[in-house]
C-alpha cells in the first residue's frame, strides 16, 4: 500500500484488532497438555498423515507464504529449504538458532518461555519437509532457565512419541537435541554456530560451500531462527495465503517486535509486519518516556544503521520500507533513543560490544573493531580530532565486505551511519582545531602525515 494523500499508511491493516498467533494469550501454553488443547501438533499430524502432502509440498507452501527469516538476514525460508540436496545416505541436520545475542533483541526468549511447542512443532515440520534426521536447538547459554524448561517439555514430546522414532506412528523419525552455547555473540552466526556445535571454536566459515552442501559435520544442514520456525505451524494451519496476506506484501507474517529504550512500555509485541514505526512507538510502546522528543531509532538490533527521528516519517517495519529509509529490518529489535541521548556515547557502547565479540579470525574485523572503539572513545572523552571522523569512515571501508562473515559489516554500519547522520554531535565533541578555521587537516594518512 502506498501512502495516499500525505497520510502515512500502515501495511499492517487493522492492527489494533490483531489477534496474536505466535504468543496467544493462553495461560500455561508452554505445557504440552495446554498446547495440545489449543490445537497444538495438529499441523504436524496433518503434515505427517495427509498422504497428499509430500515434503516438497510443505516447502512449497512455506515458499508461497513469503516467510522471510527472522534471525536478521531476512532470507526467504522456503527458498533456503529448497537448497537442501536430494536425500541420500548421508545424515542431514537442522539447527534451530536460539542463540539470540544481538543487542536489543529478546524476542526468541519470549517464544521459548511462553510458547516453546510452537517452535518444536515448527522444527518437526521443517524436518519432515527437508527429510532431516536430527535438529539441534543451539541456545544462548545465558538462557539456562529456558533451556531447562524446554528440556522438560522436550522430554514429554519424546514420551509421547512426537519426537524420536516413528513419530505418531507414521514411520517418520527425527531427533531434537538441546545444545547450550557458552556465551559468544558470534556463535549466533550460522556457520560459527555449526563449528561450535561440532565442539570447535566458534569461528565462522567462509562460503561457499554453503551449509546446505556442507554444514554440521560436513553434512547437508539448514539453519533457521526460533521465530522463523515458529511461523511454520501457522502456515500449515492457516494456509500460505493467510500468511502472505498478513502484514507487508514483500515481507509478510506475524512478527515479534522487541521494543526497548526510552519508551513508556518497553516489551515484546506481536503484530503483523509493516507496522508504522510511529504507531509502534507512540501507541504500542506508549510513547517516548517523559514526553520527550525522539532522537533516533535503531530498527532491528544494534547491527543495523540508526535512523534519525526525521527519517522515520511514514516508514514501516518491513525490509523494503526500511531499506528505502536507509536501514534494515534485522531482528525487529527496536531501540528508541530520546532527545537527551548522547549519540557519541551510545556509539561508544556499541563499538565496545563489537570489539569484545569479534571472533578474531579476520584481520580487518579483529583489528578494526578495536580501533573503531578507541577512536570513538577518544572523541567521547573530548580528545578527538575532526580528522578522526574521516578515519572512522575510512576504517569502515577497510573492513566492510572484506571478511569471512557479516560481523564486520554489522560492526561498521552503526559507526558509519551514526557518524554520518549525527555528525554535528561528533564534531561538537571533537577538540577545537588549533589551525585557523578551514585549515583543519581532515584526510587519510598519506596527506596527513
Amino acid at each position, binding site marked *: 500500500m502506498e501512502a495516499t494523500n500525505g497520510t502515512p499508511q500502515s501495511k499492517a491493516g487493522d492492527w489494533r484488532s490483531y489477534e496474536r498467533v505466535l504468543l496467544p494469550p493462553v495461560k500455561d501454553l508452554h505445557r504440552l497438555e495446554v498446547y495440545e488443547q489449543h490445537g497444538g501438533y495438529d499441523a504436524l499430524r496433518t503434515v505427517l498423515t495427509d498422504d497428499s502432502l509430500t515434503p516438497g509440498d510443505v516447502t512449497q507452501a512455506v515458499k508461497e507464504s513469503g516467510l522471510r527469516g527472522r534471525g536478521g538476514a531476512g532470507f526467504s525460508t522456503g527458498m533456503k529449504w529448497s537448497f537442501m540436496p536430494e536425500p541420500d545416505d548421508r545424515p542431514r541436520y537442522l539447527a534451530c538458532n536460539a542463540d539470540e545475542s544481538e543487542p536489543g533483541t529478546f524476542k526468541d526468549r519470549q517464544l521459548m518461555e511462553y510458547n516453546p511447542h510452537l517452535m518444536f512443532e515448527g522444527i518437526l515440520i521443517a524436518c519432515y519437509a527437508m527429510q532431516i534426521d536430527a535438529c539441534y536447538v543451539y541456545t544462548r547459554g545465558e538462557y539456562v532457565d529456558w533451556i531447562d524448561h524446554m528440556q522438560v517439555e522436550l522430554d514429554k514430546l519424546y514420551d509421547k512419541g512426537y519426537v524420536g522414532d516413528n513419530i505418531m506412528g507414521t514411520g517418520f523419525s527425527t531427533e531434537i537435541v538441546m545444545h547450550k552455547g557458552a556465551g559468544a555473540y558470534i556463535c549466533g552466526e550460522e556457520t560459527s554456530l555449526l563449528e561450535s556445535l561440532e565442539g570447535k*571454536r566458534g569461528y565462522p566459515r567462509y562460503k561457499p560451500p554453503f551449509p546446505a552442501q556442507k554444514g554440521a559435520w560436513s553434512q547437508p544442514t539448514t539453519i533457521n531462527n526460533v521465530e522463523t520456525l515458529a511461523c511454520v505451524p501457522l502456515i500449515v494451519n492457516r494456509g500460505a495465503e493467510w500468511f502472505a496476506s498478513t502484514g507487508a506484501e514483500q515481507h509478510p507474517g506475524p512478527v515479534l517486535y522487541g521494543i526497548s529504550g526510552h519508551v513508556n512500555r518497553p516489551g515484546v509485541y506481536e503484530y503483523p509486519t509493516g507496522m508504522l514505526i510511529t504507531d509502534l512507538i507512540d501507541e504500542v510502546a506508549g510513547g517516548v518516556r517523559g514526553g520527550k522528543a525522539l532522537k533516533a531509532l535503531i530498527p532491528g538490533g544494534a547491527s543495523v544503521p540508526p535512523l534519525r527521528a526525521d527519517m522515520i516519517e511514514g516508514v514501516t517495519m518491513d525490509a523494503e520500507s526500511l531499506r528505502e529509509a536507509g536501514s534494515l529490518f534485522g531482528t525487529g529489535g527496536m531501540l528508541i533513543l530520546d532527545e537527551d541521548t548522547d549519540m557519541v556515547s551510545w556509539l561508544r557502547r556499541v563499538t565496545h560490544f563489537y570489539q*569484545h565479540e569479534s571472533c578474531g579470525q*579476520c*584481520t580487518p574485523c579483529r583489528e578494526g573493531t578495536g580501533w573503531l572503539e578507541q577512536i570513538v572513545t577518544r572523541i567521547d572523552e573530548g580528545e578527538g580530532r575532526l580528522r578522526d571522523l574521516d578515519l572512522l569512515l575510512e576504517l569502515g571501508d577497510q573492513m566492510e565486505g*572484506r571478511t569471512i562473515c557479516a560481523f564486520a559489516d554489522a560492526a561498521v554500519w552503526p559507526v558509519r551511519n551514526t557518524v554520518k547522520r549525527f555528525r554535528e554531535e561528533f564534531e561538537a565533541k571533537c577538540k577545537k582545531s588549533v589551525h585557523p578555521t578551514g585549515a583543519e587537516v581532515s584526510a587519510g594518512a598519506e596527506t596527513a602525515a
Partner: protein
Amino acid sequence: MPTITIDGTTYEYEGDHKVLQFCLDEGVELPHFCYHPAMSIPANCRQCLVKVGTPKINRETGEPERDDDGNVQIQWFPKLQASCTVDVQDGMVVKTHRSDEEVQAAQKDNLELLLINHPLDCPICDQAGHCPLQIQAYKYGPEGSRFEFRKVHKPKRVKLGPRVTLDAERCINCTRCTRFTDEVSESGQLTINQRGVKNYPLTAPGEDFDDPYSMNTIDLCPVGALTASDFRFKARIWEMSSTPSITTTNATGSNCQYWVRDNLVLRITPRQNMAVNEYWLPDEDRTVYEQFNNDRPTGPQIRTGGNLAEARWPQAYARAAQDLSSVDPSEILFLGSAHATVEDNYLLTQLADALGADAPRYIPHVEPGAGDDWLITDDKTPNAQGCERLGIRAVDEQMIRSKMDAGEIKLVYVLEDDPVAAGLFTEEQLKGVSVILHHYNTTNQTLPAADVALPAAMVVETVGTYVNQDGRAQRVRPAKEIRGVNRTLMMEMGKARQDTHGTPFDKWYNEENRVNCKPSWELLPEIAERVGHPMDYAKGPKQVMDEVQSTLDAFAGATYDAMGLKGVQLEDVETGETV
C-alpha cells in the same frame, strides 16, 4: 583446454585449483599469510584479496554474452575475494594488485590493520629478515600508520613446551600452528584462546606442547611469535648462512637447511621435498645441532707408551698403515658405518678388498618402537640402506664375539661409529687389539681404546651421499669449514653457500670453531697409499660416486648432478637383511 586470465595474461589449466595456489605455481606472486598448501584453508588473514569475474552467461543460449566488439562480457563478484578460497573456473578473469587499484588498496589497508597491534620489535626479533609480515609490509603496506593508541599487550614469553616459546604480541592469528597440530601432527595440542584482538595460541591448562613435531610450528609461523626456545635471540638471520642438506638422525633422510654462523651450527630447519619429508622435520632432527659444535676432537691422536697423544696427520696415517700391515688380513675386522656416506663406506670396502680382508660389516642402530609411521624411524642411522646396497651387511654379533674371545681379531678398523657404546665390545675386550677409529666426538666410548684416532668430518662438513630407507639417494654439502685445505670441500662450499660467513673475511670468525678433522674420503686414500694400495680419486667423492653408480646396479643413476637438491630414487634391490 580451459583457461583463466590473470592480469591480462591467459593461462591454460587442467584439474582443480584455487586461484592463490594457481598464481603461486605460475610465478604470479600474491601476498598471503594464513594459506599453506598442506593444510586446510581458513581464509582468515584476508591478505590475498583479488578481484574476480566470470563470463556473463546468456540464460537462454548458455553461451557467454559478448559486447559490441565481440569480447566476452565479465560479471565481476561484488566484493573482493580471498583468492585462497576461489576455485579456478574456465573463462575466469582475475585482477591482482598489479592491474587493479582497489586490490592494491585492499592489500595496503589490510597490512595497516595487521600492524596496528603488532609490537614492531623487528630489531630484536628472530624472524626479522625472513619475516613474511615484514617483507610484505614493506612491499605492499602503507608508508606509515594512522593508529595513535596504546597497542594491545599480551604475554611476551610463554613457554608452550620444552622446545617452543611464544611471543603472543607478535601473533597475527593465522592459525597455521593450531591447524598443524590438528591436521598434520594430529596431537591437537594447540588451540587459539581468548577472543578477538586478545587471542593467541595456547595449550590446554597444565598441558605441555611436547608434540614430537612441535618445532614445525616455528617454521610455519609467518611472524616471530613462535620461536625455538634454545635459538631465540641467538643470531640474526643475515649473520647466518644456510646450506641445503639432509638430516642424519634417522633413516628418513629428511631434507633440511643447516644454519651456520662462525662455523657453528645454530639451527636446523626443514627444506621442502615432497618425495621425502614434504615440508616437515621432526624435533629430534633439529635438537641435535650441538653435536656438530661440541665435544669435537682437536686433531688426530696416536697411542704411544700406553697413552693417546696428539699427532700430526701424516704421523697418524703412517701409524694406521703400520698397524694394518702388522697383522694378518684375516685378523682384521673392518666396521663400515650406517652413519657414514656411501662414498666413505665404498672406499673402506676397497681398502679391505685390497688387503685381502673380509668385507666390512656395519653396526645397526635400531631402537624398536622409537619410530612413528611418519618421519621418525626405529633406525637411528641415515645410511643403513647405502651400506646394504654396497654389500656391507649388518654385523653378526655372536660370530664376532666368539672370534674376539678366541683371539682371532687382532685389529678393528672403525669407520665413523662407536662399537663400545653400541655394546659390540667392551673397552676391556679391546685391550689387546689394535683399534683404528674415525670418530666425530670426544665422547665416543671407543676412543679410550683407540690406537689411532682420526677425527672425521660430520655431515655438515663433508660431501657425500646417503640412501634413505626408501632407497632415495641424496647428497650432502658442507655447511661449515674444517681446518686445513681441501679443494673439493672449498669448491662445494662455494657452490652451496654464496657468502663469506665463517671465512677469515667475515667479522664472525674464530679459528677454534673450525674443527681439525678430515672427511673419511680423504683419510682412507692416505692410509691406502701407505699400505701400498693407492687409490686414484683425484676428483674426490664425486668421482667415487660416479664409479659406484656405474659399477653397482643398486646405485645406478645416482650421479651428483642427478641427485641435485632433491635426490634420486634408486631401483629396488634385494638387500641382505631388512633393517
